[in-house]
């Protein structure tokens, strides 16, 4: 039985790698430094967990999937995870990423997920955009582990209500554990707090880094009140907080994968340097009833 030894949910904001480069020259916006510090803490935690492979859950941003055929939940089972898109590398100076995909685990998640009631789409040919590569680059910069990408739709409505993201997170965790190996698996999910990229509220985070919604949702995160978090995570409720806020469903997926376990680390960063962002982590003991 494979074991989930690390579950991390972090942002994929492209300004973070830019801030990382500026920080190396002592030029970063001070408001970005707490986020970079949390990412370093979580990188160390992932290293300490000694994973054999990483399952990474991200969302395409219209780089390839479009409303001509929009998958809600998709397993990527090509031989390599390549990305991000050239335009993303050019715009934000992102690192090109090319990692082996753990094909057996990808198929275990796909088929094990189907047996548990997830009508997954799957793809053998895709690009993993910045929402995959930025978390991977921060948390495993060595690029030395095989990965499995899961695409979840956080962007193009309609999308299922929050309970389904939570449920799929839990079922994916079960499918990982039932894969018949003794591998140690890390899971990385990504998403947003309140966010308005491309919408009329896009500059709100500069004037008001932390919205009432961010405060309310964060207090629920601190209480590990997953039922209430889930109830509040429908497209309409999240979208009303900014057109990018449905990205929070990536965190709901992570809470589902945790299956009720309280996080071992939870920090929100709300500064004017970037939209509010959440860093949530479950270590091996937190995920396995106190047993590491």
């Amino acid at each position: 039985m494979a074991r989930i030894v690390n579950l991390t949910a972090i942002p994929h904001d492209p300004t973070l790698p830019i801030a990382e480069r500026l920080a190396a020259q002592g030029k970063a916006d001070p408001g970005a430094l707490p986020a970079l510090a949390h990412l370093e803490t979580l990188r160390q935690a992932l290293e300490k967990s000694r994973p054999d492979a990483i399952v990474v859950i991200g969302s395409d941003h219209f780089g390839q999937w479009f409303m001509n055929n929009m998958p809600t939940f998709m397993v990527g089972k090509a031989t390599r995870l390549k990305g991000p898109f050239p335009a993303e590398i050019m715009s934000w100076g992102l690192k090109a990423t090319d990692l082996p995909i753990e094909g057996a685990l990808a198929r275990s998640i796909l088929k094990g997920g189907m047996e548990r009631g997830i009508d997954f789409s799957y793809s053998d040919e895709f690009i993993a955009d910045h929402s995959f590569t930025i978390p991977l680059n921060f948390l495993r910069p060595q690029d030395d582990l095989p990965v499995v990408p899961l695409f979840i739709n956080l962007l193009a409505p309609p999308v299922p209500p929050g309970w389904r993201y939570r449920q799929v997170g839990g079922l994916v965790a079960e499918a990982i554990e039932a894969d018949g190996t003794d591998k140690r698996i890390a899971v990385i999910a990504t998403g947003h707090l309140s966010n308005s990229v491309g919408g009329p509220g896009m500059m709100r985070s500069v004037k008001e880094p932390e919205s009432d919604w961010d405060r309310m949702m964060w207090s629920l995160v601190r209480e590990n009140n997953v039922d209430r978090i889930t109830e509040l995570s429908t497209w309409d409720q999240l979208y009303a907080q900014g057109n990018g806020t449905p990205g929070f469903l990536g965190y709901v997926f992570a809470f589902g994968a945790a299956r009720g376990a309280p996080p071992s680390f939870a920090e929100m960063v709300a500064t004017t340097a970037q939209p509010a962002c959440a860093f949530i982590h479950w270590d091996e003991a937190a995920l396995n009833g106190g047993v590491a």
Partner: protein
Amino acid sequence: MTRYAVDKILWTYGRDPEYRARFNDDPAQTIAGEELNESERSALAAKDIRAIFTAGAHPFLIYSFAIQMNGGWSYQFMLDYVDRLKGLELGNIET
């Protein structure tokens, strides 16, 4: 629903340099064969970000379209973009 065609035009503009060049040169002619209602057609032909938003296009696609049309992103560009959307409320964007 014709909103899909609006999103598809914005999406294609962002991905296809040849389409982008044609659209920049003559937007009305480029979208002439598309299934659009009149307000969508006039918004796109005028490259009017505010009107395209009001027509219900996806904000992420509008933003990408505007960045491409601008020839790239800058902080001042972002301020100008948000200024063009000032006072607007988010509406339904399902296609």
